[in-house]
C-alpha cells in the first residue's frame, strides 16, 4: 500500500506536467482508479476478517 501512496504523488506531478488535455484526463483517471482499487482491497480484507469471525462459518 505504501507503493500505492507513492504513485499517487507521482501521478499528480505527471498530471500537472502534461500539456496534452486528453492525456491529463487519462492520468487523472489512472490515479483515481488506483485509489479505488486500494479502497476495494481494504473493504474486501475487512469483509474477509469479519467473515472469519462469523459463527456461520465455524462449522465449515
Amino acid at each position, binding site marked *: 500500500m505504501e507503493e500505492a501512496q507513492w504513485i499517487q504523488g507521482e501521478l499528480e506531478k505527471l498530471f500537472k*506536467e502534461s500539456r496534452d488535455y486528453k*492525456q491529463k484526463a487519462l492520468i487523472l483517471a489512472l490515479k483515481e482508479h488506483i485509489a479505488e*482499487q486500494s479502497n*476495494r482491497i481494504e473493504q*474486501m480484507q475487512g469483509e474477509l476478517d469479519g467473515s472469519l469471525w462469523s459463527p456461520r462459518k465455524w462449522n465449515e
Partner: protein
Amino acid sequence: MKTLLLISHPEIEDSGSQQYLLQSLPSSAAITVRHLDTLYSDGKIDREKEQAMLLAHDRILFQFPFYWYSTPSLLKKWQDEVLTEDFAYGKQKNLTGKEFGLVISVGIKETEYQAGGREGFTVNELVAPLRALANKLDMQYVKPLIIYQFHYLSERDRMRLLIKYQQYLTRQHPDSLKKREDWLVEQVQETNRTTISTEGWFILEQALSIVEDHRLAIDELAMLLDAEGEDY
C-alpha cells in the same frame, strides 16, 4: 464494437457541453458521429440512409439536451420516421440485440430531479419512453450517461466526464471496476509517448504494474470471499 452516435441539438455551436463532448471523442475508435440538425436542416430525414446506418452499427446512442423532459423535436421526428414497422418491429426486427444508450445534458441540478425536488421525477423515470422503445425493439438498454449542469463543473470534473464519455462510447457494458480497468490500461498503453518525458513514462509503467498487482489481490480476495463474478 461499432458505435453510432446520433446527436440532436438545434444550437450545437453555442453549446459548451456539446462542444466539449465533440472535442472529447476518442480518435482511434470506430465511432460514427451524425449531427441530425446539420444533416437535416430542412427537416427531411433520409429514412433509408438512417436505417442503413443503424444496421451497420452495434451500439446506437442518442446524445441530446433534455428539452421538456424529452428529446429535441428533430430526434423525435427521427424516431417516428426511421423506426418503422417491419424494419424495427413487427415481422422484421432488425435491431434486436444491439445496444441502445443515451447521453443527456441537463441544465438543472441533479438534486431537483427526484421526488420532492422542483422537477419531481428522476431523469431515469422521465426517459421511460426511450426505455420502452429499446424494450419493444429487443435492444439492450445501457444505463444512460447524464450530465448535470456542465457549465458548473470544475476542470477536474470535466476531465472525469471526458473519460466517462469515452468509456460510454467504446467500453463493454455493463459497467464494472474490471471493465473500467481493462479500458484504462489499454488507453494508457496507447497514449502518445511524445508528449511525455522518459521519467513520466517510467511513472506510467509503474502505475500500470500497481494496477496489475492490485487486480491480483482483488481476484484472490474475491475467491476467498466466494464472490467471484460479482462487480470486482
